[in-house]
């Protein structure tokens, strides 16, 4: 936050709330980055799995449900993986949208806070 410059800009409750909001958004931003990374990994794994399925000659494959590997016909596994891909893709889109909105709000708050405090406030990551 602010470093001791000694300049006295009055901090109002409204400023404080903006700073709080910024801090929370920043936090959420990092959470989102993690969640997006995980969602992408899941997506890649599903992609790999469906590619492997195309290559295999087996009619029945082991498909993990819960803790066990169930013997499931290949076609059914294919459709289940497609369904799972759809879910994760949607989830990924939702996360990306939220990230964009968070970034936009942060940019907005930066304008307001830098506008008032100038060099007395630091909103950048180290």
């Amino acid at each position, binding site marked *: *936050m602010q470093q*001791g*410059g000694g300049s006295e800009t009055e*901090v109002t*409750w409204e400023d404080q709330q903006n700073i*709080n909001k910024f801090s929370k958004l920043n936090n959420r931003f990092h959470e989102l980055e993690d969640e997006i990374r995980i969602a992408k990994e899941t997506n890649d794994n599903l992609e790999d799995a469906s590619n492997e399925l195309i290559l295999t000659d087996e009619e029945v494959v*082991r498909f993990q449900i819960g*803790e*066990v590997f169930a013997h499931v016909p290949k076609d059914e596994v294919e459709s289940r993986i497609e369904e799972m891909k759809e879910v994760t893709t949607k989830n990924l889109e939702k996360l990306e949208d939220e990230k964009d909105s968070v970034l936009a709000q942060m940019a907005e708050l930066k304008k307001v806070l830098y506008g008032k405090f100038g060099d007395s406030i630091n909103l950048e990551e180290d």
Partner: protein
Amino acid sequence: MASSSGSGEVTTERRGIPGAQFVEDVQTYLAQAGLDVNSALAFLQERLQQYKLVEMKLLAQQRDLQAKIPDIEKCLDIVATLQAKKGSGEALLADFEVSEGIYSRARIEDTDSVCLWLGANVMLEYSCDEATTLLQKNLENAKASLEVLVADLQFLRDQVTITQVTIARVYNWDVHQKRIRQAGAPAKDS
């Protein structure tokens, strides 16, 4: 979220977490609290440490819940699979782990029930429908708790930010005061 009541002196409390007081004016704050700069800073730092401690506790709870939710979803998934197999006449063949790294094959014939581990060394047999209902309820509960927890964390982070800003302001105010005094002293001498 902390509701703003004009004055800015909202010291609300949420689930045992005390709210941080927003300081309108540093000088008045110090005078009212009867503290000098150093003891005020020490007090605020201590408060900050306490907040951090609570934050760690809440984050651990959040992690637990975040792990629990996919677990329940997995359970629901397998119960749904069993139910789908029921009546099809086929048995479900499954490889399961008997010990770490050792798998055996199970044939699960038409089944109406599953056993749910309830914890505390208790396992109970449920019909698939009942199991689904129970698991669904657990899932909803877990999601609701997570939501409350996230709100708690947000409230806590607000208090942390307020405290950090207050520390910076008290510190700045002190530096400013010292400068004024320094600037004032030599001016009188000359």
